[in-house]
C-alpha cells in the first residue's frame, strides 16, 4: 500500500513539474531549458507572498501570473527569433536559466528560504499513515491534468494549438495567428512551471538552484511523451514507478538516474516514445 501510494504521488509530482514543459515542447517544438528557473521563480513568488504577509496559498495564483508574464517576455525576446533553430533555443534558454538564477541570487542571496508548509501532518489511508500534502499533490495533478485536457480539447485556443502541432503551415493558411498561439501557449507553460514551483515548496528546499534538480527528469519525461499529455501521464506513472521500485528494492542511487537512463533507452528503441501507445 505504502509502495502504491509512493508510486502514485511520485508520478503526480513528476506530472505537475513537467506538464508546463510539455505544453511548450508540444506546440513550439522547443525545449525550454529555463524550465528549472521558472520552477524557482514560482517558489520565490511564494516566498515573497509570505514575506508580504499573505497566506502561503496565495503563492499559487501569484506564481502563475508572474510566471506567465515573465514567460511572455521571454517568448518575445528570446524564443521567437529561434523557432527555426531548436538546438540553439535549448542553449539560449539554458543561458536564460543561468541569468535568472544569478538575478535571484543577487536579490535573495544563496540561502535556503524559510517558507511555511502549505499543509502538514499525515492521514490514515487504509493501513498506513500517509503524508497529507503528497496526497494533495496527487489531487492537484489530477486537477491540472483535467484543466489542461479541457483547454486542449474544448477551447478555441486548444483547437488552434492542436492545429499548430499537426501542421503549422496549414494552420497559418487557415487564418490562425500562429505567433499568437505560441505566445499564449508559452505563457501557459511558463505559468504552469511557476505554479509547480510553489507546489514543490513543502517538499524541497527553496534556493536559487532548486529547479535544476527537477529539470533533467522533466525533460526526459517530455521527450518520451512527445506532444501528448496522456502519454506524459503514462510516462510519469511508468518511470515514476520504476524510480520508486528501483529505489526501494535495488538502490536509491540507481533510482535517481533511472528516469534519465530508461527514457534514453525507450527513445532509442522507439523514437516516438510513449506517444503512440
Amino acid at each position, binding site marked *: 500500500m505504502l509502495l502504491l501510494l*509512493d508510486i502514485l504521488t511520485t508520478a503526480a509530482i513528476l506530472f505537475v513539474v513537467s506538464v508546463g514543459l510539455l505544453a511548450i515542447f508540444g506546440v513550439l517544438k522547443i525545449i525550454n531549458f529555463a524550465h528549472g528557473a521558472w520552477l524557482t521563480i514560482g517558489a520565490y513568488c511564494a516566498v515573497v507572498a509570505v514575506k508580504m504577509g499573505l497566506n502561503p496559498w496565495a503563492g499559487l495564483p501569484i506564481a502563475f501570473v508572474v510566471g506567465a508574464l515573465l514567460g511572455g517576455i521571454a517568448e518575445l525576446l528570446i524564443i521567437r527569433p529561434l523557432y527555426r533553430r531548436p538546438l540553439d533555443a535549448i542553449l539560449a534558454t539554458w543561458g536564460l536559466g543561468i541569468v535568472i538564477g544569478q538575478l535571484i541570487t543577487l536579490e535573495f542571496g544563496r540561502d535556503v528560504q*524559510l517558507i511555511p508548509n502549505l499543509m502538514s501532518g499525515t492521514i490514515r489511508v487504509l493501513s498506513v499513515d500517509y503524508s497529507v500534502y503528497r496526497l494533495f499533490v496527487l489531487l492537484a495533478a489530477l486537477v491540472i491534468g483535467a484543466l489542461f485536457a479541457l483547454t486542449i480539447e474544448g477551447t478555441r485556443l486548444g483547437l488552434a494549438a492542436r492545429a499548430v502541432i499537426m501542421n503549422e503551415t496549414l494552420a497559418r493558411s487557415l487564418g490562425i495567428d500562429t505567433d499568437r498561439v505560441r505566445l499564449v501557449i508559452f505563457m501557459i507553460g511558463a505559468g504552469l512551471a511557476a505554479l509547480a514551483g510553489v507546489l514543490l515548496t513543502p517538499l524541497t528546499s527553496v*534556493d536559487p538552484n532548486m529547479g535544476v534538480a527537477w529539470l533533467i527528469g522533466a525533460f526526459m519525461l517530455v521527450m518520451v511523451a512527445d506532444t501528448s499529455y496522456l502519454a506524459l501521464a503514462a510516462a510519469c506513472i511508468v518511470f515514476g514507478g520504476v524510480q520508486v521500485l528501483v529505489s526501494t528494492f535495488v538502490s*536509491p542511487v540507481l533510482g535517481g538516474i533511472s528516469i534519465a537512463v530508461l527514457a534514453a533507452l525507450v527513445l532509442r528503441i522507439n523514437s516516438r516514445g510513449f506517444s503512440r501507445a
Partner: protein
Amino acid sequence: MTAKLFAASAVTLLLATVAHAADSGPIVIGVPVGLSGANSVVAPSVVQEAQLAVDEINAAGGVLGRKLQLEVADDASGAAGAQKAFDSLIYQKKVDALISMETSAARNAGLPAVGKGHVPYIYTSFYEGHSCNKYMYVDAWVPEQQVPPIIDNFVKDKGAKTYFLIGSDYAFGRGMLGFTRKYIEKVGGKVVGEEYLPMDGADWTPILSKLKDAKPDAIITSTAGGAPNVTLTKQMRAAGINLPYANLAVDEGTAKSMGSDATGIYLSASYVTGIDSPENKKFLDAASKKFGADLKTPNDLSVPEYEAVYLYKLAVEKAGSTDPAKVIESLPTVSFTGPRGEIKMDKEHHAPLTMYLGQVQSDGTVKVAATFKDVDPGDQCPNLK
C-alpha cells in the same frame, strides 16, 4: 590568440609587480571559500568571522608589528574553482598563509598547489577525516569527535538500539555514516538500514518508506549541506516521522531555515551560539557590534575560521617570522582559548575539541543538552608524527 596571450601575460606581470610586497608590508591571509555553489550559504559567515579576527588583531597592534590583510577568493565549492582560487591566492596574491572552510573536493583540489607553493594551510571545516598533508592543520572536528556524543546520548537517554542511517552519496555522507555504523556496532547497537541518495537528488520518498518499514529507534542523517538537508527534513516531517533524529550535517543557520520542521533535531557540534563562556560572550558581542544587522549567525564552520586566524598569529609570533617552514613547526605548539574553548592542533595535525550535544528548540535556537570535554580526534594522520 597570440595577441591575447601577450595581453594576458602583460597584465599578469603588472599584477605580479604590484602585488609583490616587502617584508614590512601586511601579512596576507588567503581565504579560498565557496562564495558560490554548495557552500555559498555558509561562506559569508566564514568571511565575516575571518574579518573580525583580522580587525581585532590589527587593532591590538598586528603581528610582529605588521598588519594582517585578508584576500578572499571564490572556490565555487568545487575542485575546478578551488584550483583557480588557490592558484590566484598563492601565485598572484602571494599570500603568507591560507585559512579556510571548504568542501572536501575543494580542499583536495587545492592541496597540490599548497605543496608546490609551500604555504601553511589551516583547514577550518569539519570533514570526514584522514586528509593529511605536511602544510595542512585542521582545527575542526572529524567523525571520531562528533558521532560518539550523539550515539552515547541516544543509547543512554532514549534506550535506542536500532538505527537507520540516511546520507547523500558523497565522501562526507558516506564517511560520516561509515564511522557511525562502526561506532553503533561497537557500543552494541544495530544498524537496520543505511541509504544514500545522489547529491542533487530531491526525492527521498522511497528511502523514507523503507525507514518506516524498518521501524528503527533513532535516525542519523548526514547529507550534503543546505538544500538536500532541508529537503530531507521537510519530506521526513511530511511523512509523519518523529523519531529521535540526529543530523550530522546541520548547523544552527540551516536549522532556522527549516522552520518548525527542525524542531527536536539533535546535533553535535564544537560550537553553538549558546555556549556559556566569557570568551564566547565577548566574541558574540564583538561580532554583533561590528556587523550589526548584517551579522550572519556564527556557527560551527565560521567560528573555527575565527580561531584559526588567532592560531596563525600565535604561530607566527612564536616562530618570529612568516617563514613557512618555521610557521609549520610552531603551529601545533600554540594554543588559543576562543569561543569554543582551548584549541591546540597537536594531534597529528588535528585538534582535540570540546563537543556539545544540542537540540533544536521550537524557536529555532539550539539548547545544549550535554557537554563532552576534550574529545580526541583519534588517529587521523599517523604518518605526520
